[in-house]
């Protein structure tokens, strides 16, 4: 009987979280489209997410492209398909690896930072202070971050696409001995706009989810430093899980048939 009660409590707590997250998302999105807007805060968040994440995303992309070229060459050589390396690299990077890996890196860097900043503001009553100063915390804290995440992660992924393909090119040409012009022509030959568009769509959704999780867990953090720490961890873990789930959903929508 105790077991059933425990399961019931966990299920009710889950439903309560889902309900609160849905209400939070609805309120936050409604504030993105309603004035007043805070262009300075939006710009600041865009720089924080887009510009300052470039090194980590770039490094991830270049090594991913390089490893992918090596791995696919070694694997494909078993059935004499080494010529497909350039195509595999570009399709894997644009469709899958750049958005997912960039998303996970940004979740670790930005999601954690948002949760910590907003969580600290919550436990030090700065969010209450915003309200008493006639400023809506959703509009001031949450909406600019959601918008910046939605807009900037696709930009990061576009850069990651280019750098990832370049990493594959470096290994392909200088280590595996491919002819540079044939590697480039192979890269373009099978690449379709939908490959890039699907990756950028994923990136926009991931960017929104990362910001949403950072803001949500920070906004509802409780209990001082420990609560802020828990919010930070929860934001990264939940963003990572949502990225993996939505990666499948979006892939199925684009390429499911």
């Amino acid at each position, binding site marked *: 009987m105790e077991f059933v009660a425990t399961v019931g409590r966990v299920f009710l707590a889950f439903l309560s979280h889902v309900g609160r997250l849905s209400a939070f998302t609805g309120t936050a999105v409604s504030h993105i489209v309603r004035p007043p807007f805070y262009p300075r805060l939006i710009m600041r968040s865009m720089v924080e997410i887009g510009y300052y994440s470039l090194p980590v995303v770039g490094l991830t992309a270049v090594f991913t492209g390089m490893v992918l070229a090596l791995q696919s060459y070694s694997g494909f050589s078993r059935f004499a398909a080494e010529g497909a390396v350039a195509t595999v690299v570009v399709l894997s990077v644009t469709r899958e690896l750049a958005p997912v890996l960039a998303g996970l890196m940004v979740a670790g860097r930005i999601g954690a930072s948002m949760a910590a900043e907003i969580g*600290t*503001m919550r436990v*030090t*009553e*700065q969010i*209450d*202070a915003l*309200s*008493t*100063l*006639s*400023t809506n915390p959703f509009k*001031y804290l949450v909406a600019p971050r959601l918008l910046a995440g939605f807009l900037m992660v696709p930009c990061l992924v576009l850069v990651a696409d280019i750098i990832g393909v370049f990493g594959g090119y470096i290994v392909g040409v200088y280590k595996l001995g491919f002819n540079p012009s044939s590697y480039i022509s192979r890269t373009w030959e099978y690449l379709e706009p939908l490959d890039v568009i699907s990756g950028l769509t994923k990136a926009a959704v991931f960017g929104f989810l990362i910001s949403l999780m950072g803001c949500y867990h920070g906004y509802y953090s409780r209990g001082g430093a420990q609560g802020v720490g828990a919010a930070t961890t929860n934001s990264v873990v939940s963003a990572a899980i949502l990225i993996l789930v939505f990666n499948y959903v979006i892939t199925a929508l684009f390429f499911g048939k």
Partner: protein
Amino acid sequence: MTDAPQPKIQLNDVHKAFGPKVVLDGIDLSVARGESVVIIGGSGTGKSVLLKCILGLLRPERGSIRIDGEEVVGLRGKSRERVLNQFGMLFQGSALFDSLKVWENVAFGLIQGRNMPRQQAKDIAIEKLAAVGLAESAGDLFPSELSGGMQKRVGLARAIASSPEIIFFDEPTTGLDPIMADVINDLIVKCTKELGATALSITHDMASARKIADRIAMLYKGRLIWVGPAKDIDHSGNEFVDQFIHGRADGPIKMELRA
């Protein structure tokens, strides 16, 4: 026969609970325009919850809260913003925005809440900083560069920056040395008198309560068990009040301690 003047703040039968824990159990309180009322009570008796209910940060389950006769429980959006425009608040930990300079903190309500141009708001912020005894140069510092006493002064400057009609002070002297606490008390009295504002404070610092209050109310177990003029606090005839103001461990108020 003339009608009694309308109270600035009027609370009737306000109840608030968190799960099974009842924090406010039927609060009735009236604060006249320009009056300074201090609510005293031990830690965890619901003083901060009461302020947050009036500000709309928490919603009471039952009861009425009126500002200038207007019911504010459940107000949302523009109506709530309009009511909040009348308020200033000094938070217990000052609650200054870490990412903004001191002058931007003071001018925040003017720039964001009232769309005032930044330069004009900055001039007012510098003026308010001077009113609480801080130099213009302090305006360009960040809150983390200030001492606790200076942060309280900045918090006070922010609370009065928009010349509010009502100011709330949440534990204004907690964590300060006695001299700095007295400086803050003097500033609170001076600023509220100059603005002609209605003040509602919560504290368990009796020196602070005696200095800034016209009337004192004591909150215990979710109820106001005594309300009277500040000058009567020493002969209230209430054993709970006597024990509290003299800080005695023995008496009707029992600390909930567990071995």
